[in-house]
């Protein structure tokens, strides 16, 4: 079983790693690149804890093969803040107490970012359906949705001014 060499851009940096044919992108991120911010809650595409953005598209990294990452641009939770400045979503999650255990949080933040990248002014219902692939067992989603809506409003404001 020979390994395959993969080069990709992860959070803006060129990276290289070796992968087994069956290895998922999630395992490559966590085990090969030490980016353990993406979590595995199910390994079957049902919980969203492993959500990352690949070439601008939200994907479950547990469902994507690492080999498919060749030449792709991958964004993970570790690249969300700009240096020590938190992304508005991260900041709003903190202000709204939108996390309890925090295990779903990286995935939900990535999914929310993908939402706001595509739709800067979502309705509450749109946000709820967009995030329907991301399970949170702690919060009941109330504060998560509020944080996302508030971050969206703030980001729109920032764009205008």
């Amino acid at each position, binding site marked *: 079983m020979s390994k395959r060499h993969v080069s990709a851009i992860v959070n803006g940096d060129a990276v290289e790693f070796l992968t087994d044919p069956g290895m998922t992108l999630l395992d490559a991120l966590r085990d090969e690149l030490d980016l*353990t911010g993406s979590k595995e809650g199910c390994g079957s595409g049902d919980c969203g804890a492993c959500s990352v953005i690949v070439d601008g598209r939200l994907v479950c990294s547990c469902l994507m093969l690492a080999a498919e990452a060749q030449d792709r641009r991958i964004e993970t939770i570790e690249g969300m803040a700009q240096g020590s400045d938190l992304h508005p979503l991260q900041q709003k999650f903190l202000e709204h*107490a939108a996390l309890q255990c925090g295990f779903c949080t990286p995935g939900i933040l990535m999914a929310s970012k993908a939402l706001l990248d595509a739709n800067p002014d979502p309705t509450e219902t749109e946000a709820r359906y967009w995030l329907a692939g991301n399970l949170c067992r*702690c919060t009941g989603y109330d504060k998560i949705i509020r944080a996302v809506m508030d971050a969206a409003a703030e980001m729109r404001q920032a764009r205008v001014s």
Partner: protein
Amino acid sequence: MTDVLDRADATPRLKVVGTRPIRPDGADKVTGRAQFGADLTMPGQLVGKILRSPHAHARIVSIDAKKARALPGVKAVVTGADFPNLADEFHEGGEAASNLRDLAMNVMARDKALYDGHAVAAVAAISTAVADEALALIKVVYEVLPHVIEVEAAMASDAPVLHPTMFTEGLDERPALPSNIAKRNRIARGDLDAGFAAADVVIEGRYVTQAVHQGYIEPHACVASWAADGQCNVWSSSQGQFMVRTYCAKVLGLEISNIRVTPAEIGGGFGGKTTVYLEPLALALSRESGHPVKMVMSRDDVFRATGPTSGSVMYVKLGAKKDGTLTAADVELKYQAGAFAGSPVGAGSMTALACYDIANFVITGWDVVSNCPKVAAYRAPGAPIAAFAVESAMDDLARKLDIDPIALREQNGVKNGVKASYGPTFANIGYLETLAAIKTCPQYSMPLGPNQGRGVAAGFWFNVGGESTAAVHINEDGSAVVVTGNPDIGGSRASMAMMAAEVLGVPVEQVRPMVADTASIGFSMLTGGSRTTFATGMAVVQAAEKVVAELRRRAAVIWDVAVDQVVWADGVAVCRDPAKATGKTLTLEGLAGQSGRTGGPISAQVSLNAQGAGPGFGVHVCDVEIDPETGHVTVLRYTAAQDVGKAIHPSYVEGQIQGGVAQGVGWALNEEYIFDREGRMENAGFLDYRVPVASDLPMIDAILVEVANPRHPFGAKGVGEVPIVPPLAAVANAVRSAIGVRMTELPLSPPKIRAALDAKAG
């Protein structure tokens, strides 16, 4: 403790408690830096994997692991034979008693596999692929036995018996034959027959709930290292590092002094991580292989081999006078315990009627084993199940008497001085206040449309205190560190820091909370039972008070005055001695900077066994809309009111309530363990075991009622358990109101609603 009451009354003067600061561990959690159970790696670590029984009930005739051991890259294989056989021993530890012998046999099967997913062997190998290959090479010969899952079937006299040594406890006479009924308990008061004779109206029902899983998103995970000198280190995600230490020591026959457990961040537990599954196996594999071993469960493992809470069958009969006064209640609860004794039916029995003042009642509980995973604690263990039955019956009663459901509960509700159904007399409870909060909330009077309905339900949980240790250290710049031994499962670091900051009189940002490993702080019971903010919080407050006393003493040394001439206010020492300059101040920073010359570092540790956690009550109102075509239930609006004593960090208290509601709604509408004819779980994944997602729920309004608990320095009561108690019935009562049919079997899935609608249409 004399000034406690005064302080609780002085609530308005609080500067930190009751505010909503950003949690101290927040930045790590939104940037992906927080290390959860599966995030830690050790040099040279191996991958540990478990072979699980594919049979619900089978004798293990033999296990041949020769081929697996011979596979290159395999470093260890362990089976039941590698673990000591324990005698019956109950480990109380303030949590629900667990029989260590059962615990050990649940971790690794010995002569019988008792459920689909029961661990029968484990391997450690250099990679996941090799470990998986090794599992496939282990040859287990099973003699498959008949199995039983459903609770009443397991109680039948011809049911296959799981444990030939199980003779029902709690009967008037010891039975002659073994059975699957571990125990009967009974709580009674008054004269049941007379109570029903006095009733004008009687309501009766049979209620069924299915086993449901806690559903934490983080699967169990740990890394364990057994060093050549016998020193063991475990990193794991659990609700209590000390619990992990005790259980590992017992299951493996080790000295506690040789085990150190470091808590990882925990990705949800809800009671499900109050026991061990992986840690003793990882240690055993590490011992045999000489390497650290990491084990991470798959979601399939989590469903098949951990948790869940009981499925049940219940009978409720209520009697009342025309004016609504309850005269009698007969409640029978039959709970699945899973493969080993110990369902939460005891707590279910004690909570079943705890909201009501009834003169005559009998509550009978049956603890029944069957071939499904051993149940684990799940938020207010046992209470939501019983509340589903009793609160459904109360709703039918209100309907029959044409009394508003809140008014009926007010009329019969417990208040201070009333003897609880489970015995003691209530004090400082806020049930009536909580009912009033729902009665006056906007949702309760909002008009309903077609196919819509509204349901109300109440719930109770005891809340507990228990043993906790906390330390407060003052750094040389005047900042502080608060150290506790309780994993932070939902924001407890924030509340610990806030309580310390309040006492020290400093901004909360100046206090850094830490969760320490078992070698770095004194014993604490686990995070659970809604005890942490209450009990560990009490230890934090007392440690901070000791530090304040010490700071005053140091200031007195510096000013050369008597200690009683120094007061501590807003984080500074103030001199009151008229002989010296009155009003002279010393900051915390100033005192800390000179601590070397005034007596050394300033810190304090307090260990205590907190008593008097105040009982909590919740009242919920749920509005639903039914799609008559599909039978689908949409939750339109939800308001939950709860007596929380005093909310230390209101956002996280609201979060606890909203999260409990969401879990309860899932339990009511979607979630259930489904077994096939061979007793194998059919829906062991989030695709088919459907927990609520964001689009399934509305905003959940949380109303915090604050009836102070005089035993806590700031009046706090536990909050985490109560919110999951009322939702099952609140949803079912709303569905009843919408479709005009009483549904008595959870979950209220679309096919069941459709069937009910069809039957009604005739």
